[in-house]
């Protein structure tokens, strides 16, 4: 018997955003359908994974996460190189965690100098995250923009409180920005409108809807991403037609369940595999919701997700 495949008609399309520069540009976005819905639309650029690098040696990571980077953990340049050379990272996400006033409060110029070194050391696109502290991020990210002029870094988070100051600087030095709002489609749209008013070009904006970990609020993030995608593709909401980044590794690896050893919690199985799967499944969920860039930590989790993306990008026959 014949039946008709119920297709959705998409009137919108996600903008294509080139990241990095020169020969090493990686483009994200461009979808004209829901995630991996290849039977009814095109996905010219499959989602990409950015590997995390920290500006200072992390203190609270479980050994299972630190182990692959134990030899480079104190040196962000070596760490970034290792991600690219050993693990084939498509992008690097530098987390300037030590700039947090509640942590070491690393000054802005120092953070910018570290960023410069990392950006000089690798060719792949470089994403740079502050710590969501409005005032400190303004200082740090402005310094980063200046020091790394012309490198088309992807910097953020730009929030309600600091999008003007950072946005203007980013335009001046030609970087891409991450517009960050706490899990709310209306706030996300509003911020993108404001960035537009500020004259940030449309090919320089990525949406960061913020995210929680599997078991820790992921459902809200999952749904807000799905809603943003629906608004962009079906309701032609032009200010939501940007690629989405999901920065969840740091959320996953701080949960209790990745830190418990097998003897402490025998029913939770192997500690390393558990952590890897907690991260990889968080990724799997946001991928299926519509994320374009995943910020990830563990090389084994990354491999699983890469495979998953490959598998889902094969168009099923029939």
């Amino acid at each position, binding site marked *: 018997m*014949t039946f008709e495949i119920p297709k959705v008609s998409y009137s919108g399309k996600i903008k294509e955003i080139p990241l990095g520069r020169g020969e090493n540009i990686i483009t994200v976005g461009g979808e004209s359908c829901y995630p991996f819905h290849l039977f009814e639309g095109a996905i010219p650029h499959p989602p990409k994974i950015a590997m995390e690098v920290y500006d200072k040696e992390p203190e609270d990571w479980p050994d299972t996460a630190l182990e692959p980077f134990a030899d480079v953990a104190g040196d962000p340049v070596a760490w970034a190189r290792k991600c690219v050379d050993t693990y084939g990272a498509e992008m690097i996400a530098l987390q300037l965690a030590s700039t947090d006033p509640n942590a070491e409060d690393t000054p802005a110029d120092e953070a910018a100098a570290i960023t410069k070194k990392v950006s000089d050391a690798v060719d792949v696109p470089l994403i740079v995250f502050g710590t969501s502290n409005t005032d400190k991020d303004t200082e740090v990210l402005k310094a980063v923009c200046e020091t790394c002029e012309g490198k088309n870094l992807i910097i953020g988070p730009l929030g309600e409180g600091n999008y003007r100051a950072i946005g203007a600087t980013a335009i001046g030095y030609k970087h891409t920005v991450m517009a960050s709002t706490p899990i709310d489609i209306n706030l996300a749209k509003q911020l993108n409108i404001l960035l537009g008013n500020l004259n940030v070009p449309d090919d320089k904006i990525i949406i960061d809807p913020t995210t929680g970990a599997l*078991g820790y609020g992921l*459902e809200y993030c999952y749904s807000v991403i799905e809603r943003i995608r629906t608004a962009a593709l079906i309701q032609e909401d032009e200010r939501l037609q940007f690629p989405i980044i999901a920065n969840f590794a740091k959320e996953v690896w701080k949960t*209790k369940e990745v830190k418990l050893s097998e003897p402490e919690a*025998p029913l939770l199985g192997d500690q390393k595999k*558990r952590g890897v799967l907690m991260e990889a*499944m968080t990724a*799997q969920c946001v991928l299926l919701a519509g994320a374009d860039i995943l910020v990830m930590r563990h090389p084994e989790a990354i491999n699983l997700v890469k495979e*998953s993306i490959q598998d889902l990008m094969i168009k099923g026959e029939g």
Partner: protein
Amino acid sequence: MGLSGIEIFKKLPKTNCGKCGVPTCLAFAMKLATGKAELDACPDLSEDVKEELGEASAPPVRTVVIGTGERAVKLGGETVLFRHEKRFENPPAFTLFLSDKMDESEISAKLTKFKETSYERVGLVLRPAMVAVKGEKDASGFMALVEKVCNDTDAALVLMNEDADALSQAAKTCSNRKPLIYAATMENVETLGNLAMELSCPLAVKGNSLEELAELSEKLIKMGVKDLILDSGARTAGKSLEDQIIIRRSALMKKFKPFGFPTIVFPCEMTDDPMKEAMIACQMVAKYGSIIVLSEIEGHSIFPLLLASMNIFTDPQRPMAVEQKIYEIGATDENSPVLITGNFSLTYFIVSGEVDASRVPSYLLIKDTEGLSVLTAWAAGKFGADTIAPFIKKCGIEEKVKHRKLVIPGYLATISGELEEELPDWEILIGPREASHLPAYLKELSA
């Protein structure tokens, strides 16, 4: 679905007896029409009317029950494509795959893991739900394995065999358990359709394509089989995603009856790598798998899968919340520490679990934050010094303890000064940020 409130009203007894919980038949009809009431609430409906209305008000994806008693598994009943539209109804059943080709020790080990795997989270029990038993050798070996599994666990079963005779035989011996019979195909559709009706068991349908699946399903519906489970035959992640989406959309958007049933998917047949298998299973959790068959149940993969399923199937409109009150954890007395947090279920269960694990008897004050987590509630203006202070004064804790020390969440450190001003008798202690550091903190505090 279909019928309006008025149309439903016409079929009701019109006695306005109120036994259904609302004062009039009309009010009840309106509730039915919007899916806010169950037909069974009215005790005075004739069987005919029940069937007619049941059909008309049924969700586009039929609810199918497999198994009996406490371990019965409810699947389907879905009404939307995206979870933000309305709560997804029935979470997937993670199902352990066993075959008569496996040796006895492997089977026992897998069954033991299956049985002991159970987690409590946010007050819910999370565990794998069913066991699938596949016959790949001779009928007697299959029968023996089915019997063993029946004796070993009360969990709902899937019986799988390409040999229709062996399958019938096994299904007959345990039909009281209401197993899922797998699977009707082009070759055996009549035999198995009749068997399913005779035994009142749910039946899986397997096509080699969506077209074939639709044809088979249609045939079975015509035969009168009510409870079907669909297998589109896809055995790769990509094709499977596509098929699941098309099946769900056909049921919802086109009211295409042959696809208005829950599905069964087999990550265990899509890869040999258990980690990758878990990832494919996770995909099915989000995108519409109902029975998800796995080659093994291991804590490191099933736990995150159960979390994913819990996340995807929670109500998007209402966060899970607990009651505002003083929770006494352990044998508290007038010197026990006092902690405060919000009433988001997840927060409450995580924090109370850690307090409990510390073995330091403590009072945990739960303030109503409308089901929001600590920082979300704070950001929403529902968990600041201005609302915490009156709560402390009124909740009764001042009569329960002699001391005046209040431990607040580490993430709320910024409010401590203000809170001290509002509560001059109290000393505010800033607890750790992560609840997992609470046991060490409480031990030190009470030392």
